[in-house]
């Protein structure tokens, strides 16, 4: 692995997370290093979204720890997480449906007050997604799935995060949109943001990522370089649709 000697920007250690009595994460440990794209693969219900919800404070782990930039954030309130430098495009996009595109993007920068910086980042988002600029005054709830996904990613970028969490950004999108989204993920990463990418589209995700983890019913069953995972027999069988 190419990560020797560095300290991770994000580190989960033996995280257990529950929904009531349902034990959704049964001891997850993973790292994201600065500048990396790390992908989290797994079937529906494996616990990928729950992992992200544990990181962002919406579903606090009952056991284990989460560290970000060396500091423990396991019990930090959800609304404080974004200030620490973690933003996300959540599962189902979760835009504010009755706000316009611009208003949604502004919400992404809610906890910031450097107006010039916010304007700069808005321009940057419009550069990444010219489509959003065209739709800037449209209500987010009335846009197509692909446009909403762009808006959700754009909104997360408006927080100027150090770490970006993306939950199935390609879900339900037409193939051209999927390619475009992955191009943009690559671009965002090149501009210096670390990314934890949850995907069911394993092939695309492994192409984009440096490293990957495979999740099964709340356990991590595989962890390796993306290239190695792509050639891994088990991964090919289960996630890349080979027989």
């Amino acid at each position, binding site marked *: 692995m190419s990560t020797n000697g560095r300290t991770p920007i994000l580190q989960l250690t033996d995280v257990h997370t529950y929904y009531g009595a349902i034990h959704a994460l049964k001891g997850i440990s993973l790292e994201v290093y600065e500048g990396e794209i790390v992908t989290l693969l797994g079937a529906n219900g494996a616990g990928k979204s729950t992992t992200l919800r544990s990181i*962002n*404070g*919406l579903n606090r782990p009952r056991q284990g720890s989460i560290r970000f930039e060396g500091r423990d954030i396991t019990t930090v*309130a*959800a*609304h*404080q*997480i*974004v*200030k620490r430098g973690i*933003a*996300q495009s*959540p599962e189902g996009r*979760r*835009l*504010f*449906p*009755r*706000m316009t595109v611009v208003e949604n993007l*502004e*919400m*992404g920068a*809610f*906890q910031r007050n450097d107006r010039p910086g916010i304007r700069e980042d808005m321009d940057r988002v419009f550069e990444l997604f010219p489509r959003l600029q065209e739709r800037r005054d449209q*209500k987010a*709830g*009335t846009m197509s799935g692909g446009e909403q996904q762009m808006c959700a990613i754009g*909104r997360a970028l408006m*927080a100027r995060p150090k770490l970006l969490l993306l939950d199935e950004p390609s879900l339900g999108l037409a193939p051209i949109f999927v390619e475009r989204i992955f191009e943009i993920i690559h671009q965002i990463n090149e501009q210096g943001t670390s990314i934890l990418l949850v995907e069911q589209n394993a092939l695309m995700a492994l192409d984009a990522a440096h490293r990957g983890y495979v999740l099964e019913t709340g356990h991590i069953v595989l962890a390796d370089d993306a290239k190695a995972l792509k050639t891994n027999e088990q991964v090919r069988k289960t996630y890349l649709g080979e027989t």
Partner: protein
Amino acid sequence: MAADASAPTLATRLRRPSAVGALGGLFVLALLAWLAVNAERTPADFLEVFLIGITTGCVYALVALGYTLVYGILELINFAHGDVFMLGGMFSITYATHFFGLHTGQGVLIIPIVFATLLLAMISCGLINAAIEFVAYRPLRGKPRLAPLITAIGMSFVIQDVGLIWKGPNYITAPDVFPRSKVFSIGGVDYTWNKLIVVVITIPVLLGLLYLVQRTRQGKAMRATAQDMDASAMMGINVNRTISFTFLIAGGLAGAAGLLYSLYVTTVRYDQGFQLGLIAFTAAVLGGVGNLPGAVLGAILIGLIQAFNEGLNWHAPGSDWTQSIVFSILILILVFRPEGLLGERTPEGG
């Protein structure tokens, strides 16, 4: 999600058999005809009743906004809200007479007293409403809808009992300080100071609220929280604090309504919030629950309907029928136009 919500209503509106629409149209026409005949026969009475309706409508609007704000953010019908309004009336009378020694014949001195009382009543009711949320509704967040709803009904009884214990079972009276002399006359009808005062206090409160919700950072947080709580937390919004703030504002509006009502009507009793609350709730539903301008529109309409019903001479059903009429309206809206007159279910006022 807005598209999901509005698409079916639009579709049902288009699909709905036009017989019902025609019947509704006929009913509204008959109502207008009845009003026209009354206006024709006794124009002065009509005008006077109209002005009374606007005045009560203002009080209803302040209370209706509280229902709509809370519904917009939690999708909870806060049944205790009317009772917070009642407490507002009791606070107002207590502050004005016991603290500030308000009595009739004080001249312009009543102005600072009324404003100080208004402020104190708003603060008191705001804090009580926020406390109710904290104690009774917050622990039930994420539980099935029925749980907080039943709790709200329980809170309503609790507050009524507080009023009963505090002020006893009889009407308590406020000094009759709003002058009834005329400001101006139109069509032979005097527009009196007491009505004008109610409107003059209501309007800036409403404008302040609109400004708060539409233009401030806190208002932005309220709108976002109303649309998606988890996403709001991800944006860095303290959702709990935003909900507390919403209850504080709603309670403050109820406090303002309590002051106006107690000084305009001059009597308050422990069970008064229940009936007025249901009227105001109907107003909120009529305007489109969750919609701020809708709540004001609905409240003015209900105020007018009540005044016409109770005050007109020619074939008006009379005050015995007011409750029945208000609830018939509530049922008709819920059946035929659940999204209300102004449609969209938004707290930001579309």
